[in-house]
């Protein structure tokens, strides 16, 4: 079953504290009179990658920065690694790595000097050379940061976040601005850290990246969680599609009747789309019908909903409540 925010709230009450790295309950954050985050509940289990998706302005970065201890919530409770992130920020940052959506550097320091400074600010040991090698910045170590490209700066951002091999990682749009090769290198670093048991909370605009890496995810819209749950549950919440072209002259009425709630849409002349809660059942029915009536179906496609479709449905709706 998909989690909806209501169910997650009750689920959070039963979450095993030992296995919960992040616990958020009724989080609210305001900028003056504008409420950017409106009663958000979710938790992140130890060792998992949780993806927080949403449009620009949905409240993702505000949520993340509250969990990172950079801002105080207006209401609600937040526990990160068992700590209040705002009050215990120093202790939290000893154990967590943070890659902000936007942050700056001292432009006249070189890459190596920046990394060394970060090492000196950290109480955990780290290998700067290995980190620079891994993020493809070793050959740029003596270049001043202001001379780096945007993609190189983003890699330096990620480098500083993972330098001390933290047990928890906050990644706010980590691959934005990276070329495909750099993006893949960055995700390989993330996969390696996941394999080592690092817990991650990630925001990204690249839905396919969330699909390929996240254990669980949530979609924020206008300050609230519209959808949350495991990837499988989220994808299953949206109807699957079966689409095909009927041969000319074939009446739409000849299509079989379907059990349950199946919507049949005629997209344009001859092209039909079925939206079904049970892909296997109704795909079987279509194939059997086709065989029985010897109807050739062209451009035949059948697939579960994609995260993209769910995302667009969430952001395109007019302020509806959470999915049922």
């Amino acid at each position, binding site marked *: 079953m998909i989690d909806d925010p209501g169910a997650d709230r009750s689920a959070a009450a039963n979450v095993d504290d030992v296995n919960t790295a992040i616990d958020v309950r009724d989080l609210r954050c305001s900028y003056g009179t504008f409420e950017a985050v409106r009663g958000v509940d979710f938790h992140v289990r130890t060792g998992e990658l949780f993806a927080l998706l949403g449009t620009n302005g949905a409240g993702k970065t505000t949520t993340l920065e509250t969990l990172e201890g950079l801002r105080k919530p207006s209401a609600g409770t937040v526990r990160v690694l068992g700590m209040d992130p705002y009050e215990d920020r120093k202790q939290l940052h000893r154990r967590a790595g943070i890659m902000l959506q*936007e942050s*700056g550097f001292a432009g006249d320091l070189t890459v190596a000097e920046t990394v060394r400074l970060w090492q000196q600010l950290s109480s955990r040991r780290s290998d700067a050379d290995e980190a620079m090698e891994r993020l493809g910045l070793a050959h740029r170590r003596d270049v001043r940061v202001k001379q780096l490209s945007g993609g190189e700066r983003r890699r330096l951002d990620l480098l500083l976040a993972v330098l001390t091999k933290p047990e928890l990682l906050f990644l706010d749009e980590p691959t934005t601005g990276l070329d495909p090769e750099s993006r893949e290198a960055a995700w390989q670093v993330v996969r390696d850290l996941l394999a080592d048991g690092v817990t991650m909370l990630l925001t990204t605009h690249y839905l396919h990246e969330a699909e390929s890496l996240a254990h669980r995810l949530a979609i924020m819209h206008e300050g609230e969680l519209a959808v949350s749950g495991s990837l499988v549950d989220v994808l299953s919440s949206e109807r699957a599609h079966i689409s095909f072209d009927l041969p000319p002259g074939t009446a739409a009425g000849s299509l079989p009747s379907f059990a349950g709630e199946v919507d049949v849409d005629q997209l344009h002349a001859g092209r039909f789309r079925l939206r079904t809660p049970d892909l296997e059942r109704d795909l079987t029915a279509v194939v059997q019908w086709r065989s029985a009536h010897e109807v050739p179906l062209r451009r035949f496609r059948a697939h579960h909903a994609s995260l993209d479709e769910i995302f667009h449905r969430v952001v395109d709706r007019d302020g509806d409540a959470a999915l049922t």
Partner: protein
Amino acid sequence: MATARTRLTALLLAEAKLIGRNATVAGTATVFPIGMAVLLVVFGRDTLGALGWALPIALQIALMAGMTVYITTTLTLTARREDLYLKRLRTSECADSTIILGLASPVVLLGILQCLLIVGIVWVFGPAVPHNLPILVVGILLLVAMSTAAAIATTGLVSTIQQADMAAMPFFLFLLGTVMWGGMGGPDGPGVVQLLTPGGALMDLVRLSYDPAIGWEALSESLPALAVLAGWTALGTGAATRLFRWERRV
């Protein structure tokens, strides 16, 4: 293992490196006070007035504290915030106070050095001998501390470097103006109201430092002025705590 002190040192050295790599800043930071002191020695010695060396030296010290410490610290912190470098540093293990002190320290130390340089140059080439050096040094340190606190507070009121440039002017002019006003009291020192201003307090301390007619009693006579500067420092610190923002005003 990193401690608060090692983190502060790391930030201070990094910031000092940045200042050193800016040729304009590095040059003016050394040339300017030396040049001012030389001008004072060459052109000022015949126009000293009743206060002798005290007034021009007090003005120079106020100039260094105002320009190097107050204005530069305001601009530096504003720029670091605008560049989102402050935000990055807050994701480290540093306490907020360590970050602020680490970034401000090189400029503060430079300001102190400039003040001492002026005193030293005028002492050697003036010659203007500070007969009560400890009073002068404590006065300089308090003035620099007050200027630093005021800079941190001013940073909280602005969003951009351009705004910071303009916002810093009133306090800077207030500092210089109150030194001049304090000097109007002549050899007897500033009046009560003048003494309550930071410039007036500084003027009194410098007067007591350079007046050869005042001996050990200068120590007790300096207490009101020292208390005033300490009070302004406390005021500045309170304002800084209340006003400073880590992200720019939206």
